[in-house]
């Protein structure tokens, strides 16, 4: 067994680690508690409790619900397109070490660090110069660019664990590339594709800068609408929306196989 040779250091690490865990969880708990307040301000803890803001949200907040629907539509399109395009690209590039592959991979991953507000302005300029009206579809195009790097990371992690000899076997037995992709590659990388799609969806649902630049009354997404509410008057309905989002997130996490999220275990 290990001996504690440096008790102050170990103690400091455990205390700091415990604080880090509290820091991780605290905001979520505060939001959930806040959503059951009976007051009109963000006093914490609330002096009295109720579910009034949830009632208010679902019975008397058409704009919030409309923007939530817009978010879901955009995320659905963005998830489908980015998962399809990203999976194909990741499979093509997986395990390749030549210059072109590395350059393409860097290009496909670059939206992760390219400032999204700049990309949003770039898209807005192109659309306005081309005379294209803003719509949920133009917004989804921007979201595909933002979400695809996550799909590629997830899928290539799964694809790299695949034995390339399997494809050579399939080819020598006369299977076409397309047939081999659907019958061998896709089933083997399925968990990577599914986690890629989930992360793409969450990225799109959560995305702000591009949505903000490409936003008009018809294309306002939920985060943009909530931001506008919080900027103007601290409407406590935002807490109820937050409560719903937290509940939905926990539900999704419990339904989705937890192992998929554990680092290093994807695809096993």
């Amino acid at each position, binding site marked *: 067994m290990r001996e504690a040779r440096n008790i102050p250091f170990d103690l400091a690490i455990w205390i700091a680690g415990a604080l880090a865990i509290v820091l991780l969880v605290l905001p979520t708990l505060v939001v959930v508690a806040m959503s059951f307040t009976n007051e009109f301000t963000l006093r*914490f803890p609330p002096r009295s409790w109720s579910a009034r803001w949830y009632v208010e949200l679902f019975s008397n907040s058409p704009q919030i619900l409309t923007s939530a629907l817009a978010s879901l539509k955009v995320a659905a399109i963005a998830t489908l397109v980015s998962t399809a395009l990203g999976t194909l690209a990741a499979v093509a590039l997986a395990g390749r070490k030549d210059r072109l592959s590395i350059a393409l991979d860097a290009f496909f991953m670059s939206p992760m660090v390219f400032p999204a507000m700049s990309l949003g302005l770039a898209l*807005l300029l192109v659309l306005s110069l081309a005379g294209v009206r803003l719509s949920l579809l133009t917004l989804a195009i921007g979201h595909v660019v933002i979400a695809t790097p996550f799909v590629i990371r997830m899928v290539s992690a799964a694809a790299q664990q695949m034995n390339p000899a399997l494809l050579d076997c399939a080819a020598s037995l006369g299977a076409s590339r397309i047939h081999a992709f659907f019958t061998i590659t896709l089933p083997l990388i399925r968990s990577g594709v599914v986690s890629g799609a989930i992360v793409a969806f969450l990225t799109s649902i959560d995305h702000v800068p591009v949505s903000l630049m490409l936003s008009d009354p018809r294309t306002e997404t939920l985060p943009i609408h909530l931001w506008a509410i919080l900027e103007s008057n601290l409407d406590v309905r935002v807490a109820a929306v937050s409560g719903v989002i937290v509940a939905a997130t926990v539900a999704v996490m419990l339904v989705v196989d937890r192992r998929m999220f554990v680092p290093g275990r994807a695809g096993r």
Partner: protein
Amino acid sequence: MRRAGGKAAAFLPAAPLALFFALAYLLPIAILGAVSFRTDLRAGDWTIAHYGAFLGDGFTLSILLDTLWLGLQVVVVTLLIAYPLGLVYMRAGPRVRALLVFLILLPLLTNTVVRTFAWMAILGRNGLVDTLAATLGFTNEPLRLLYSRTGLVIALAQIYLPLMALPLNNSLAKIDGNLLRAAEGLGASSAHLFRTVILPLSLPGAVAGCLLVFAGATTAFITQTLVGGGRQIFMPLFIYQQALGVQRWAFAAAASVVFALTVMAVVYAFNRFARARLRGVDA
């Protein structure tokens, strides 16, 4: 070497994405660059006046530098929180590890606006911190952490902590347990072990985390505006105001280009530096 035809066919599945990115990513950025050299969006001549105006003005330049400084501050605070968390993760069994991953992912998967809103409730007037300070008898005065730089850095560090913790934990979990036991068996103290074994071996994860957190914190429009308040202006809000607020499209384009180039340059330089330092570690 493979034949060129076979090589081209292998790249074929990447073609749709390459085409999509060329049209929806590269082309807009090229046009953004072009517009930034025009006097106006639709009319006018070629000019470098917008870059002169941005880089020559102390006010705009300070916004850019302050945004980078904010990113750096957040990266440092996230590192300070993520390492103890990572050491706990490293020593934990599989069940506790799974729980920790769940706790790390939960805030990452809930909306940014939700997390930002949580910090407004924590830092705001009569919020959690004020209530705690009053209950513990420190002060009854509001601490005014909301709209302060300290509050903003703490909130951003918490919001982007998962982006640091996930790659860092991944690196820490890969460290060979025999190596740790050997060092302990030879009498290394925990602090010494951390400095000489754990820290160097976990650097790849920490580097990846630093890049993601830096990119995230510098562009975190929602948190910057809501927790930072109106007195602190960072590049994303500045670009937004210049474009959609006062419709100085070409100037906003130039500011966007400068901002994007600076962030990419910092990321690239840090990556190069880290890789050069890491070359000895992987061997």
